[in-house]
């Protein structure tokens, strides 16, 4: 079971001194530009047919047109709503229930089997049930996102709480730090890197599930726009891939924001401090 746990690692491991900053970001941009250029070259060489997969320039110009219209921003807003509410509910429940289950060995052993079982259920399999219960609505999206996020995260929280260093625990007890105070000041901080890592994975999972729910189940958002463009035929493929690009960019953006917040919130933890320290 320990195999299913992600080990928190420092987020700020840097390979070189600060002056390499420009070089590193320059390289990233260069790789991105090379990928886009390769895409365009393949289209122009005729290796990818335009009516099956649009060229980079056609897709990017479709993206530009969509960005100028209200529909793209409405879609992004609706997708983000499902993502944020689902993540908050699923994540919140996972932290509370995971902590409770992690604190008691008996509770942990009782629930872990069920949790492992539910964790492996593909969300797509319960989508029809969610549709029957809530229709193609925000509620349906939120429920699926919360479900998808909850199970992996609850295990992560359990392990985090259970991984409390015995010395820290004994020290706290020797200092008569107990009960709620012990939980908030000793257990939770110790579990925090595990929770942070679990949340980082959840940020991406929630976005994927949200968009898939829109695409297959219905409900407004980026997924619905992909469906509309797909059903409109080959002439609308640039629009379809433009929305797929938007989904990807949104994923990168949300992961970036999370990493930033994580660094701010977790700066005190030694796994983060250590990594930052190596950077010199």
């Amino acid at each position: 079971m320990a195999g299913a746990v992600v080990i928190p690692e420092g987020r700020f491991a840097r390979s070189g001194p600060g002056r390499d900053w420009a070089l590193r970001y320059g390289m990233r941009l260069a790789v991105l530009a090379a990928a886009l250029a390769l895409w365009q070259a393949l289209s122009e060489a005729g290796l990818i047919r335009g009516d099956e997969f649009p060229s980079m320039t056609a897709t990017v110009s479709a993206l530009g047109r969509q960005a100028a219209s209200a529909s793209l921003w409405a879609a992004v807003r609706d997708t983000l709503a499902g993502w944020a509410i689902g993540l908050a509910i699923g994540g919140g429940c996972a932290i509370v229930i995971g902590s409770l289950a992690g604190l008691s060995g008996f509770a942990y052993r009782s629930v872990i089997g069920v949790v492992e079982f539910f964790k492996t259920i593909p969300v797509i399999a319960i989508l029809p049930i969610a549709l029957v219960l809530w229709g193609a609505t925000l509620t349906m999206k939120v429920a699926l996102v919360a479900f998808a996020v909850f199970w992996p995260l609850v295990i992560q929280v359990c392990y985090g709480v259970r991984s409390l260093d015995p010395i820290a625990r004994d020290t706290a007890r020797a200092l008569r730090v107990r009960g709620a105070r012990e939980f908030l000041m000793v257990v939770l901080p110790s579990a925090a890197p595990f929770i942070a890592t679990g949340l980082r994975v959840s940020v991406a999972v929630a976005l994927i599930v949200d968009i898939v729910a829109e695409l297959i189940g219905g409900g407004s958002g980026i997924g619905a726009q992909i469906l509309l463009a797909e059903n409109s035929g080959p002439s609308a493929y640039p629009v379809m891939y433009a929305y797929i690009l938007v989904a990807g960019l949104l994923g990168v953006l949300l992961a970036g924001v999370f990493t930033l917040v994580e660094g701010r919130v977790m700066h005190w933890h030694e796994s983060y401090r250590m990594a930052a320290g190596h950077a010199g």
Partner: protein
Amino acid sequence: MSTHTQRRRGHGPSEHVRSGQRGTPSWRAAVGAVAVAVALAALLTACGGGSSSGPPAASSPGSAAGGGSGTVTNITLGYVPYSDDAALFYAQDGGIFRQHGLNVTFVAQASPVAVEASMASGTEQFGFVTTPVLINLNSKGVQVKCVSSVDGNEPSSDANDSTVLVAAKGSGITSIKDLAGKNVAEVQLTSLNSLAVEVLAKRAGIDPASVHLIAMPFPQMPAALAQGRVQAAVIVAPFISTALAEGAVPLIHPNVALFPNGTVTCLDVMGSYASAHAGVVAAFRAAMNESIAYSQAHQSQAKATLASHLSLSPAQAQAQILSTNWDTTLNPDSITLIEGYMKEFGLITSEPPAASMIWTPGS
């Protein structure tokens, strides 16, 4: 304090990354799920004494039959976006729904099964359905009823139809007889299109089971045909133009051959909604019939709605073929015919009468 982290290092994070999107849903199973859930919901409602039941979106039900009588009823409609929705889009954009006292919210969905599931939840009152899904639900005891056509019945000539069985270039297939042992792409198994191929195969004197039906979305069919992954496909406009450009050969228009002037799709409601809100349903039917008649007379105006509702340019919207004979009379004989084929090929076990699947005022 870092010992505990060190101890478990080496287990990759990838095990924890579960997108939850693997596999595709079995919509056949989903129809079953809808049936079970509706039965369950009915049971729960019955146990709960029926308090606060009824769709939340419908205000002042039953009073909107008279056009422009002042009251407006809010309804939500689930639809599958494609070009045959032109008359439906016109009913919205041209203000016909509004004139009949209906304020309609449109929800785009990927398949009729997703639409019906949303109707079962009560969040949608009207929805797009194909006749096989309509029959399947009714045969499982879920009462859903056709209220109106989407844009009229199936045409009786190939020129007005856009669903074609094509053979791949170089496949050697020249007639339906040659499909034995070949792979045929279908948008969904147990759909009208796949049923039609089975019926046609049997009529041509070959074993329907010898035709390998493969589920595949329309956009992927031209490439699959060109690469030889399938030797034939039932494909629709606008994707068919790509396939034909690559040398695919049209064999037959299955729906024209089997169900001319038939009702192969419709806009439907749950039976329980129809009996509780007969006035709204009547208003909806009147609005759709008016819009279809107007669209027939003003086709370029109807097609123009496709530009804003689908991702098409105005020119592309005008180039679409609307697959219809513009006849708004729902055809029970064609429903009975399709039902008979579904029974024959083992898709359903009971055959409820076609008349029970078409809404009539006062039923």
